[in-house]
């Protein structure tokens, strides 16, 4: 009978060995594509956009035509797509897996947020259009402001800060403005816990204050005796994070607030950890005078590889009059923008940035808030705290929690469980990468040795948590069993191995440079 005899085996032969990690010619490995710089791929003659031909009419540039070379290559559209899709595949992402990053609140980024942000009435409007043509945009700002003030129990909010640290700056500027307005110009000392994130002291100094550090007690909270001893009539205020950077609720917070107020100072709260209490506790009820909110943390706006953020800052009655311009006000059902200090009712400390704030993040955050509602947001805080405690409870037999007792939305471990294994917190983190997880926050806060701060957020399922817990348990046991090399070499499965950060800092190369033209070899 006729047969199609072209051999096409349908399974691999038994004697073929498939182990090993062969180097390839192209540098790509299956779906993982190597990708050079645009400067090595494109050319200055290439362009991926079809623009109409310019008419070539006379210019009116006053003799200031550009003579300096640009040197920027272009790529056609298909090549551009390939370049960025290939690069994207070298990135970890929330949509791929868990980021257990303490104090970062890497929760799911809903796509409805993206759709709403792109509505033409939000995305395609200019901030300087006449007010009558952007009432809906002002309404978004006003509505979001209302949600934030209500969730926080505060009477004022500054919407213009462009990121969390910018919001910290706003809050501390309001405090400085208030103190100066009241003639309290001798008050220049700000109390900051040792465990605070570095932006806190940096911000205090930018506002002309000096920083006085308060130690933590053995439970990881503000040492009340030390705190009381530091009060004085030169105290401007305190900057606290609550829950604090150890993931613990400051039990004495009301007493701290009252004492600071009695001493003539103000209470700034770093809102990075708001996810633990949103919908359940209002910072205003804790005595807070100013708190920045990271919309990209608690309210799910995307991290985008490092930004943009948004840091609206809620303000108490005492500080609200000093809120910066611009802000929106509703007058007879019509929204108005107050842009100049002279037009403001209070005494704004100034303008923080051009235009009116991070509108693109406002639409996303408002969409998120409306989706959850007050009941959903309360559930967010509860599930976030539940998840962190679950991790702590299930790992404490093999890893070492830094403090005894329950935590809030993040669980802090130290490196005591790795003692004498030769494995450091850094090595442990890099081994997590091989297991398909982004590492947790490491070496922060500084008050604990080899800190590992784990925040799963509420959008992590129980099965996801169980898989994560099982992995960390296995890694801990492997470290204790002496498998040092595995940890010190990690990661081996990521797109790159460990990178030489020393070299990058000693010999900074911060851009591509055209290779120098080769010198002709002199004739002998």
């Amino acid at each position: 009978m006729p047969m199609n005899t072209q051999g096409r085996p349908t399974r691999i032969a038994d004697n073929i060995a498939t182990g090993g990690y062969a180097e390839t010619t192209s540098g790509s490995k299956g779906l993982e594509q190597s990708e050079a710089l645009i400067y090595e791929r494109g050319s200055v003659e290439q362009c991926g956009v079809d623009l109409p031909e310019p008419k070539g009419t006379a210019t009116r540039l006053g003799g200031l035509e550009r003579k300096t070379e640009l040197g920027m290559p272009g790529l056609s559209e298909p090549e551009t797509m390939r370049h960025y899709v290939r690069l994207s595949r070298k990135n970890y992402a929330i949509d791929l897996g868990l980021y257990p990053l303490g104090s970062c609140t890497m929760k799911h980024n809903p796509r409805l947020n993206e759709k709403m942000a792109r509505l033409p009435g939000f995305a395609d409007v200019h901030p300087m259009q006449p007010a009558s043509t952007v009432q809906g945009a002002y309404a978004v700002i006003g509505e979001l402001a209302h949600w934030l003030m209500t969730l926080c129990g505060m009477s004022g909010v500054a919407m213009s800060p462009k990121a969390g640290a910018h919001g910290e700056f706003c809050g501390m500027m309001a405090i400085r403005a208030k103190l100066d307005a009241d003639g309290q110009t001798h008050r220049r000392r700000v109390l900051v816990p040792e465990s605070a994130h570095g932006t806190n002291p940096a911000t205090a100094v930018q506002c002309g204050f000096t920083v006085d550090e308060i130690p933590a007690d053995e439970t990881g909270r503000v040492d009340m005796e030390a705190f009381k001893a530091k009060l004085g009539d030169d105290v401007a205020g305190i900057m606290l994070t609550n829950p604090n950077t150890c993931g613990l609720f400051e039990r004495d917070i009301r007493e701290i607030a009252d004492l600071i107020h009695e001493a003539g100072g103000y209470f700034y709260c770093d809102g990075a950890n708001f996810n633990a209490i949103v919908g359940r506790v209002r910072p205003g009820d804790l005595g807070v005078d100013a708190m920045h909110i990271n919309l990209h943390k608690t309210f799910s706006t995307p991290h985008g590889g490092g930004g943009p953020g948004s840091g609206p800052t809620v303000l108490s009655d005492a500080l609200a009059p000093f809120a910066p311009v611009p802000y929106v006000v509703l007058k007879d059902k019509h929204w108005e923008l107050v842009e100049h200090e002279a037009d403001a009712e209070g005494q704004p400390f100034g303008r923080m940035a051009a235009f009116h704030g991070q509108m693109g993040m406002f639409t996303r955050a408002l969409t998120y808030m409306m989706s959850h509602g007050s009941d959903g947001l309360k559930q967010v805080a509860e599930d976030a705290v539940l998840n962190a405690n679950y991790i702590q409870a299930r790992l404490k037999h093999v890893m070492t929690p830094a403090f005894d007792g329950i935590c809030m939305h993040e669980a802090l471990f130290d490196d005591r469980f790795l003692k004498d294994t030769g494995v450091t917190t850094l090595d442990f983190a890099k081994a997590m990468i091989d297991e398909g997880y982004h590492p947790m926050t490491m070496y922060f806060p500084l008050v604990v040795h080899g800190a590992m701060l784990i925040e799963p957020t509420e959008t992590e399922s129980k099965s996801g948590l169980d898989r994560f817990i099982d992995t960390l348990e296995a890694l801990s046991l492997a470290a204790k069993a002496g498998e040092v090399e595995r940890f010190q070499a990690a990661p081996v499965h990521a797109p790159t191995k460990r990178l030489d950060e020393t070299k990058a800092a000693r010999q900074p190369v911060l851009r591509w440079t055209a290779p120098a033209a080769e010198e002709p070899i002199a004739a002998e």
Partner: protein
Amino acid sequence: MRYLPHTDTDRKAMLEAIGVASIDDLFTDVPEAARLDGLIDLPTKQGELQVERAMAAMSNQNVSASSVPFFVGAGAYKHHIPATVDHLIQRSEFLTAYTPYQPEISQGTLQTLFEFQTQVAQLTGMDVANASMYDGSTACAEAVMMAARVTKRDKAVMAGTVHPHYVEASKTLAKYSSVSIEVTEPELDSLDKVIAAIDENTACVVVQTPDVFGQLHDLREISRVAHEKGALVIAAFTEVVALGLTEAPGAMGADIAVGEGQSIGVGLNFGGPYVGLFACKDDRRFIRQMPGRLAGETVDADGRRGFVLTLSTREQHIRRDKATSNICTNSGLCALAFTIHMTLLGEKGFRQMAQLSHENACALADALDAVEGVDVVNDAFFNEFAVRLPGNAAEIVEKLAKVGVLGGVPASRLYPGQFEDILLVAATEVNTEADIEIFAKALGGVL
């Protein structure tokens, strides 16, 4: 709730594993007085359809730039952004990625930032650029503070024709520092007053070109004077597309270039998020005093090229109270949009876009100049210029809006009580001949 994966069974099992009876047992540290009875007074959860309706209702109240003849500039510009850009920035691996602190799993972000930094340096004619700032105004403010640190002087001079928002942002950042800022009276056609204000105590002089009135300035003379006196020159810009046709700040003697990159890749977005550009000369005094993140090239353990965030000891999370700035975030996704758009354009497309924008502005200038009583003020501009009207510009802008034309920004909106007859108008490659005709006709009609 659709974003919360736990079932009641899950929650029960987890509470058991923790060893507590209810979720309230995990909130026992909250002071009694702060415990709420029931829900906070806000609407309860809504499905996608309801949320869409509520947001659309607000969006529909706004007049979008694409729906009418549009000539608004004054610091933000409407250019055409190819569909590919928005598609790519919505990829999960870009949109939902974190800051690249773990470089082995962030090479996508880091390589695109390295490419971005190179593009920004080339555009501005500088040696190095950072991985972006929040926006042009805060980049300008940070540049002033950097100049003070580098020169160890505390007087900054800003030209009155720098965008007032940039001036105010700088004043706010410097307010409680030892740095004082002097702003010279705005001159529409020279930098003489600014030059006269520079002395041996000046840390830096900040000038904008094209300035807020759209006027182009040659910075060579002011750079010469400033450098003679030991002061740094900070060149600001609000329209990055100008760099496709007009001289780069680095070629005119600027030490630091700061500006807004929004025109490329980002879109209007009612004012934010935008992308601040920050570039400077490779002077050894500068690199370690630069604010913001920096992506740098290095190698991995196998000798392969890779990229990392570097020179981090300038930053606040390490240097704390001695940091060069308190800035933590960059404008990540916006910087990515910028670099993708710039890659699609290449220098060929970028120059073309600049040429088209300028030609449309020239056509607009001719059309408006022809309207009775209207005069174009500038003799040299890129895509934005000032027109003098026979009436109050703010009122005229309102009248134009009522007849469906977004005809620019009254200068008095940026300078309260001044320039009340001056209107700032901008054109880009998106404007058509028909748009220009409608604008000129409408202007004639409302005067």
